């Protein structure tokens, strides 16, 4: 058997515990197939995801970051996800300036019953990033450092 040499993106997922993480759980218990490229991190609310965490993930070797929370209006903390949306739009503009492609960092709404939707998001994200290739932020910076 030949070992696959295709690029496997490393994606960090910040999933809100009330909706997206439960949705991801449902994807698992429903035995829905999706790529193993995502490394989920359970957070209390998508509004808790400091932009520092996203930048740190990218700078430390992640090829992409997914932030997923409750649909607007469904937030367990009333409006945490709206706060995320405000922050995310601004972050997107800044990441674009840094030269990081839009497909690498995504904000998605996944409810606890949307296991299928979660799986398809991870699907498309993995494929999009596979096409973009590795981010390799640190080594790229070091190559151009001198």
């Amino acid at each position, binding site marked *: 058997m030949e070992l696959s040499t295709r690029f496997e993106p490393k994606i960090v997922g910040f999933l809100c515990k009330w909706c997206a993480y439960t949705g991801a759980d449902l994807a698992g218990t429903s035995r829905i197939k999706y790529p193993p490229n995502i490394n989920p991190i359970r957070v209390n609310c998508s509004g808790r995801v400091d932009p520092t965490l996203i930048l740190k993930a990218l700078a430390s070797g992640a090829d992409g970051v997914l932030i997923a929370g409750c649909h607007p209006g469904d937030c367990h903390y009333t409006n945490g996800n709206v706060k995320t949306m405000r922050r995310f739009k601004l972050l997107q503009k800044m990441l674009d*300036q840094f030269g990081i492609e839009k497909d690498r960092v995504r904000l998605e709404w996944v409810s606890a019953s949307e296991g299928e939707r979660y799986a398809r998001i991870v699907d498309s994200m993995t494929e999009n990033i596979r096409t973009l290739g590795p981010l390799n932020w640190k080594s*790229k910076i070091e190559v151009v450092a001198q």
Partner: protein
Amino acid sequence: MTKAKVAFNWASSCGGCEIAILELGTKLLDLKEKIDIVYWPAALDYKYSDLEAMPDKNIDVTFFNGAIQNSENEHVAKLLRAKSKLLVAFGSCACGGGIPALANTKSRELIFKSSYKETPTTENPENTYPQSKFEAPEGTLTIPEFYNTVKTLEQTVDVDYFVPGCPPVGPQVGKVIETFVSGKLPPKGAILGASDKSLCHECKREKTDRKVAKLVRTYETIQDPKKCLLEQGIICMGPATRGGCEAVCLDANMPCRGCYGPLPNVLDQGAKMLSALSSVFDAETEEDIQKLVDGVVDPIGTFYRFGLAQSLMRRTKQ
């Protein structure tokens, strides 16, 4: 009593930090009783050969201002590290990269092209660009190598203390030098001449919970000099910036640009400011949010004006 041997050096910076030392005024003359300035190229006539001739650890404390943008800066940083017992990163450029680190949003090629070809006042038909080596009939001529990425002092050599500010404000400079003269030194890595709280704690402007529906730049509005600038829609870096300067810019009706750097335990000043700024957005829908985001014309230049080199990303992809 033997006098403490002190050195001041100027790398990639504007020279404002040297002026900050002169801001001590006549105090500098009193200091002369306690310290011996053994190296200060900006004010007194010293050559690198004088520095090279010194034995190692000869200087008690070196105040190093400026970022590391070329091989000369790096060479002097390494030389001063070897010759000094204590090395202090003095000013925003040495601490976080400062204004020179905004060059990290471009590549060396783009910077050269802009400076030596595209500026309207430049005529360069032979496409002459600076080379680090040139073979002249008299021999090989060299100039320092210009780096693609600006580094902080700490990314180049081991640093003992940090004094942020662009430039560090006069009263704080006095206190910092006093600290070294007294010999009562804080633990290594400490940030001197600054507070551990955000600038907002020092700012005298009135703060409420007002949110903004539109961002404006300073020239686009007539501001209320008593009220928080963020609440008036002017981007002010205060919430994400270390205090210590007594909010001098705010007193002059200018927003904080963030020169005192990130607060304690903060990895990335820009990310924190991005968060703080979006928290004052008065917008619930995507369209309204987008309108506010459009008001941030240059996110990197705004959030990392003085600290791109020490940020998590360090530079843009080129």
